């Protein structure tokens, strides 16, 4: 006798993953099919157990070098922007290539491929974020902030700030101040 069965591979896998991960006590979230996000830090032992258990079912962790490299690029940029005190004389492209041991062209392509934004955009975003945090958390004037972030002038910082966020640094400053006043009034 022949029986025809139809099985949903995805559902099957999800079920297996769910059971096994529960046993291991790992909290996770299913993103797209084939992508997991651990919601809590996972120890090396847990990771090893996770890999062995799932191997039995033919499920295997993909070591995605690209994603890891993109993360490295991001980390390097954040470090570069937020620790600009020891002023980095070289261009950011040279700096990244040196630090990560790949050509800038390769890094740039890879970054765009994975994140849908360019490295340049990401650097600007980070610089503006840093400017925002300086506006929010310090008493530095815009001139001082522009200097610290190695902008040629306040006008340059203002333009880039406006380009990125749609508002001027002065407006941003005012909004933050008003928000604080509002919060204080409520408390």
């Amino acid at each position, binding site marked *: 006798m022949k029986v025809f069965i139809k099985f949903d591979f995805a559902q099957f896998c999800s079920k297996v993953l769910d059971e096994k991960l529960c046993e291991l006590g790992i909290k996770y979230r299913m*993103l*797209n099919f084939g*992508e997991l996000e651990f919601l809590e830090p996972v120890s090396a032992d847990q990771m090893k157990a996770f890999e062995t258990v799932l191997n039995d079912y033919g499920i295997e962790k993909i070591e*995605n070098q690209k*994603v890891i490299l993109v993360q490295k690029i*991001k980390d390097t940029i*954040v470090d570069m922007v937020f620790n600009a005190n020891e002023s980095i004389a070289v261009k950011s492209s040279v700096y990244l290539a040196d630090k990560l041991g790949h050509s800038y062209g390769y890094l740039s392509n890879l970054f765009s491929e*994975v994140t*849908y*934004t360019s490295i340049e955009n990401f650097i600007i*975003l980070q610089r503006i*974020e840093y400017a*925002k*945090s300086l506006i*929010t958390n310090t008493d530095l004037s815009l001139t001082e902030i522009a200097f610290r972030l190695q902008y040629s002038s306040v006008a340059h910082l203002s333009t880039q700030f406006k380009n990125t*966020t*749609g*508002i001027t640094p002065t*407006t*941003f400053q*005012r*909004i*933050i101040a*008003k*928000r604080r006043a*509002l919060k204080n009034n409520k408390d």
Partner: protein
Amino acid sequence: MQEDFTYVVLADDDEDDRLFFVEAFDELKIQTKVDVYKDGLELMDALNHPDAVLPNILFLDLNMPKKSGIECLIEIKSNKKFKDIAIAIYSTSASEEDIEDTFVQGANIYIKKPSDFNDLKKILSDVVTINWQYHTNALDKDNFLLRL
């Protein structure tokens, strides 16, 4: 890692605007789920439901019957449960006072409704991308202010 799937909600009393909104996301190649509500009251009822799945980004029209966008904004901001929702004001008005006021009240994004569909698509895609950047790069959400 690929794009996260983003849950987007719009509250707008204008039927045409709701249509544009949904169509724009349909045409965008971003993984999203879109829900729309006809007014502020309907929206708040849905959000306050105990089993409600909270959106990643909430788009609020300012001028709505029953409950205005700014009322919704204040209500949402006063409830800790909703602290992770990024709020985008989606309005016809572009008066500086309106914009600044909503930002002060806690909105993250201010969008002036564009008069070109392709502009709308571009704006919505930018919003999702930047929100995602904030999400994935652990940026300070309190500093998330964007005007499009």
